[in-house]
């Protein structure tokens, strides 16, 4: 098992990718499909919207996250910053998107805050705030969701690049805080997180989870159009959907290429700036402006979750009342009668995904703990699903599942969830395992412990905090993912994600809010449980790795 586990991980990850892409080739390589696709009115506007929203959101998020970590990362505020990021980080994109609709739409929580005393509105104004045709709300939503992710990613890399002393050194040479960061630390960090940033870009360009509640509708971004074609009752749209999946893949690769080009140009500017010796001492105003933006972003995310939870009372909530008239869970039954069943299915899939991915990863981490190159290769392999548009291979994977008669089974859905959980689980556990001082295991062995006992009494406890975190991460991914559930489930496996998205598409915001709130709550509880347990465990043992 131990020797085979790395191959098992690779198989879990590669089979759906290869089978999915092959299935897409088989179904999309048809001239009439492409003619139909190219004759779709507004197609290029959809393509442009996808690139624009994904690209802008990634650039803004990355800039804000860097500045946030520059301002707080090496000071005592780092831990608190991470804490503020956690709720938004844990919330699924879809749930957060629905929460943002409840927060920012004309009848939303923000408008109620200022009505009628400041605005005079007794009824919601007839404005377009969310789903605006230029995709600004979508960009805002993506920024709110990705800034915390990138902050946590950068903070994780911070400890590996010795940032504190580098910052001190640059500041003692007379550089302002932001310039010191930009020259001394940012390039090192950026190298460490480049694949994470690429994943954010790919998700931004290809997602449906945020675009469904917040994105433009006529025309929508390309991914939403594909979803409509694939889920249409009329199967005639299928071939053009497969051709569209290939177009989306091409667009995504073009987006990644563009990001690479932008990085190249920025690199040139960076070298000139690094050589100039300019100290940038008056950076206070930049810090203040961007700091305010970052706080607004983080606060916006927290308020969206709050709005989502408020809406779950499900009762009447007349504008401009700030709170619903009756706070009770009674109304859920009318709004979302199948919520209990969806919660049960979501829980089952989440627990299975977490258990399976963590157990196999622990075996593989044990097998590869002294093989750095193999670890890095497997990590890169497991990361591929995050660098491809989900649409590009999930549709083809569904075709394969149908031919295997596995579509619509929990096994198929769990497999598809595991595929997306593994990159996070691997990143959490593999390097932690490798970083353990090998002397602990050797010492235990020489004191007479069997290999199993060494793992159980020494390795596992030292990794326990990471194991708990990995379990919560895998569970959250499983709760969050929408397209893998929809396609591997053949539309027959109903989870909170699929129900929330279906309600949102149908324009039933109450039902979407109920499902979205439950979808946001489950990962929050998982993370709270995991972090709480990690805090209680080994409370009196300072030497245990965090």
């Amino acid at each position, binding site marked *: 098992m131990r020797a085979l586990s790395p191959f098992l991980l690779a198989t879990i990850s590669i089979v759906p990718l290869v089978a999915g892409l092959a299935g897409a080739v088989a179904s999309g390589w048809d001239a009439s499909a492409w003619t139909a696709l190219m004759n779709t009115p507004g197609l290029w506007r959809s393509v442009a919207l996808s690139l624009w929203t994904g690209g802008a959101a990634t650039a803004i998020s990355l800039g804000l996250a860097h500045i946030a970590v520059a301002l707080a990362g090496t000071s005592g505020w780092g831990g608190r910053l991470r804490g503020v990021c956690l709720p938004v980080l844990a919330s699924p994109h879809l749930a957060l998107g629905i929460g943002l609709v409840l927060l920012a739409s004309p009848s939303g929580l923000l408008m109620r805050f200022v009505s009628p005393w400041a605005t005079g509105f007794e009824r919601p104004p007839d404005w377009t705030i969310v789903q605006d045709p230029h995709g600004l709300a979508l960009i805002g939503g993506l920024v709110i969701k990705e800034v915390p992710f990138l902050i946590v990613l950068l903070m994780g890399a911070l400890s590996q690049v010795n940032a504190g002393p580098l910052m001190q050194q640059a500041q003692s040479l007379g550089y302002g805080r932001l310039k010191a960061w930009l020259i001394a630390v940012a390039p090192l960090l950026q190298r460490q997180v480049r694949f994470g940033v690429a994943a954010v870009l790919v998700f931004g360009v290809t997602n449906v989870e945020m675009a469904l509640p917040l994105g433009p509708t006529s025309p929508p971004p390309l991914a939403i159009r594909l979803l409509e074609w694939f889920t249409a009752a009329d199967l005639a749209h299928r071939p053009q959907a497969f051709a569209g999946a290939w177009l989306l893949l091409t667009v995504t690769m073009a987006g990644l290429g563009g990001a690479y080009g932008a990085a190249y140009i920025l690199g040139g500017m960076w070298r000139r700036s690094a050589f100039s010796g300019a100290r940038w001492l008056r950076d206070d105003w930049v810090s203040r402006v961007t700091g305010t933006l970052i706080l607004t972003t983080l606060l916006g995310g927290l308020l969206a979750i709050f709005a989502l939870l408020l809406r779950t009372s499900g009762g009447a909530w007349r504008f401009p009342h700030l709170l619903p008239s009756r706070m009770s869970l009674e109304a859920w039954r009318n709004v979302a009668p199948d919520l209990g069943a969806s919660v049960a299915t979501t829980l089952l899939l989440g627990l299975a995904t977490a258990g399976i991915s963590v157990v196999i990863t622990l075996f593989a981490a044990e097998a590869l703990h*002294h093989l750095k190159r193999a670890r890095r290769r497997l990590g890169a392999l497991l990361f591929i699903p995050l660098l491809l548009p989900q649409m590009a291979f999930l549709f083809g994977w569904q075709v394969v599942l149908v031919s295997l008669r596995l579509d619509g089974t929990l096994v198929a859905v769990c497999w598809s969830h595991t595929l997306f959980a593994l990159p996070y689980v691997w990143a959490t556990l593999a390097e932690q395992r490798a970083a353990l*001082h090998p*002397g*602990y295991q*050797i*010492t*235990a*062995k*020489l*004191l*007479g*412990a*069997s290999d199993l006992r060494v793992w159980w*009494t*020494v390795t596992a*406890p*030292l990794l*326990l905090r990471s194991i708990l975190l990995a379990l919560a991460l895998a569970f959250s991914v499983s709760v969050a993912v929408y397209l893998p559930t929809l396609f591997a489930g053949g539309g027959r496996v109903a989870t909170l994600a699929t129900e929330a998205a279906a309600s949102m598409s149908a324009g039933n915001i109450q039902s979407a809010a109920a499902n979205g709130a439950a979808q946001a709550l489950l990962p929050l509880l998982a993370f709270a449980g995991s972090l709480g347990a990690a805090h209680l465990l*080994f409370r*009196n*043992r*300072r*030497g*245990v*790795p965090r």
Partner: protein
Amino acid sequence: MSALELRDVSLAVAGRPLVGPLSCAVEPGTILTISGPSGVGKSSLLAFLCGVLPRSFTRQGRVFLDGSDVSAWTPQARRMGILFQDDLLFPHLSVGGNLAFGLRAPLAPRRERTRLIEEALASMDLTGFRERDPATLSGGQRARVSLLRVLLSQPRALLLDEPFSHLDPDARQGAREVVFAEVRRRQLPAILVTHDRADAEAAGGPSLELEPRE
């Protein structure tokens, strides 16, 4: 028949000879000191003796412990105690938990094991330390706990891989005396790898200098 004997031991890594061929014997209660520049293979030799040398090394020769050839035995079966530069106390266990991990008295009831641990702690002026977090101990205290842990596992030989080099001078002197006294009291064959000439002098046994190989 010596307690610990090496016969024609040679080690190589990636086709490059590292150590040996080397033959030597260590009598009970004596400490063989091995010195030599960094990278000469001292630690690899100890890893070979206790059976944890990575597979990437090629090895030849035999190791005898109390007359039996242990070359093919598992690390667990050889029962060679080793002390490293880092004390490697398990950070997730208390001081007492660490000692219990080492203690070889499988059939003894809980109370008896606790008594043995308390007794061991008292023998090294560590009375009352059983529930302590290892991270709160001084370097000298940690070195003594580490020694106790390995002694409680009833080793048949003791290997010392520069175990004093991380200690400050006062603690080093104390730890050295305690370790060497225990080796003599228990009549264990011991091998000490060190850079420090004072260590070698205090050990008072035969010594061996490893030369770098081209």
